[in-house]
């Protein structure tokens, strides 16, 4: 065996250290982390029976607010709650059965269509499914 010179030790050591420095992120990457969902394409918005007829609740969908409405007839509808005018959060107005934006008086029907006021585009609608005790809201494909 050749005499181990300083250069050889230096080389071997730095090589090992570099390999370790590269393996560390690889291992961390491959190990599953605590944060869950990749896709926030569907979310449990509420429990069945949580909302009485003609009532609504705001929930988080992905990273924007959305609204789940239990209409007076008992159907569940879900829409984006971001007003298409200047992004204020709309709220459900039980008396008129419409979604109302308090910032500049924009009004939408429960299909998202603009009924009056300044909003230029309709609200995005979502699909609602009841699975067991959960009301699941997901993006329409």
């Amino acid at each position, binding site marked *: *065996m050749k005499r181990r010179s300083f250069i050889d030790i230096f080389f071997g050591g730095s090589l090992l250290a570099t390999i370790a420095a590269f393996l560390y*992120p*690889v291992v*961390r*990457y*491959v*190990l599953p*982390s605590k*944060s869950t*969902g*990749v*896709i*926030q*394409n569907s979310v449990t918005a509420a429990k069945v029976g949580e909302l009485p007829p003609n009532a609504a609740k705001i929930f988080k969908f992905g990273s924007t607010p959305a609204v789940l409405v239990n209409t007076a007839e008992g159907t569940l509808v879900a829409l984006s709650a971001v007003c298409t005018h200047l992004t204020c959060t709309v709220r459900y107005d039980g008396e008129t059965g419409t979604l109302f934006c308090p910032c500049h008086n924009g009004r939408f029907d429960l299909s998202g269509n603009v009924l009056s006021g300044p909003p230029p585009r309709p609200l995005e609608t979502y699909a609602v499914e009841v699975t067991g005790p959960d009301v699941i809201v997901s*993006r329409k*494909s």
Partner: protein
Amino acid sequence: MAPKIGQSVWKFLDERFMLSQLITFGKKKTVPEHRRSFWYFFGGICLFLTAIQIATGIMLLLYYTPHIDAAHESIHFIMSGVKFGWLIRSIHSWTANILIGLLFVHMFSTFFLKAYRKPRELTWVTGFFLLVLFMAFGFSGYLLPWNELSYFATRVGTDIAGSLPFIGKGLKTFILGGPEVSQATLSRFFWFHIALLPMAALVLIGIHIFLVQTLGMSKPIGEQGKKEIPFFPDFLYKDALGWTIILVVIGVLCVFLPWEIGTKADPLASTPLGIKPEWYFTFMFTTLKLVPAHILSIEGEKLAILGFMAGGLLWMLVPLLDRRAGREKRSPLFTCVGLAVAAYIVIMTVLTYALPKL
């Protein structure tokens, strides 16, 4: 004790894998050293970067989803939710661009050194196909994040393919998996990127490297010097030095300029202004934009595309065309042609960014 264990492990493997014979063979391999031998490193760097792409690509596969409802979101997750995901993804994106750039350098350096001459014609031809393959890698990979830029760049690119005479429509439908960019396209590009192209590339790289092994490195015409250095370990260490430096460059790029996620593709949105393909396609893209609408009653664009294809064919056949180099004589004509081509590519690429309003 450790050396003893090392020795017995070595003996075990040697008896089964004939390792000592391989080493003896390997020790015979030499590389010429002369004024221009610096260019020999570029092939190895390209191989190294390809290995990085395969490694990071396999890792990205762990978290990426090739569906239009999830692709963009999975990239977002990789960048923000996965530990070091930002690093793996940025390495993959940056290295792709660096690799393609260095492939061009490798190609032009071998061209100017006339390394394509007999008996290395097939090395050049396989190399040319590899360049085309890697640009296809770039094109297919670019769509996978499913963001606005990638969606429209794919649309523009396949529209150009579709304008080829006779085969255009069929070709475009085959590439897109349908009449337009859709889920079928994403699945298909994913298949190209992780299965079809890697298989083809591995075969071609195998042939290419095998040829380099058997034929050795080409020396410039008229190079008299006989100096040679052993491949193992001298040349390899020099190779490794280059690789180390490029790793530092990639690291700096990834930390200070992480690759962006972009906005999710919306097929209904209008094409953003100034949309263009990735930089390595821009020389062709700008040519198409500058070519007049009609040349002698033939559509200018079609003529330009056919021109590129003819040019590519001639470029690939250079080993057969350059007779002088085949006789170990200097061929300044081909050097000039090469310079013209290189200048054209550089100028058209720079023009794309210098005059975006074209």
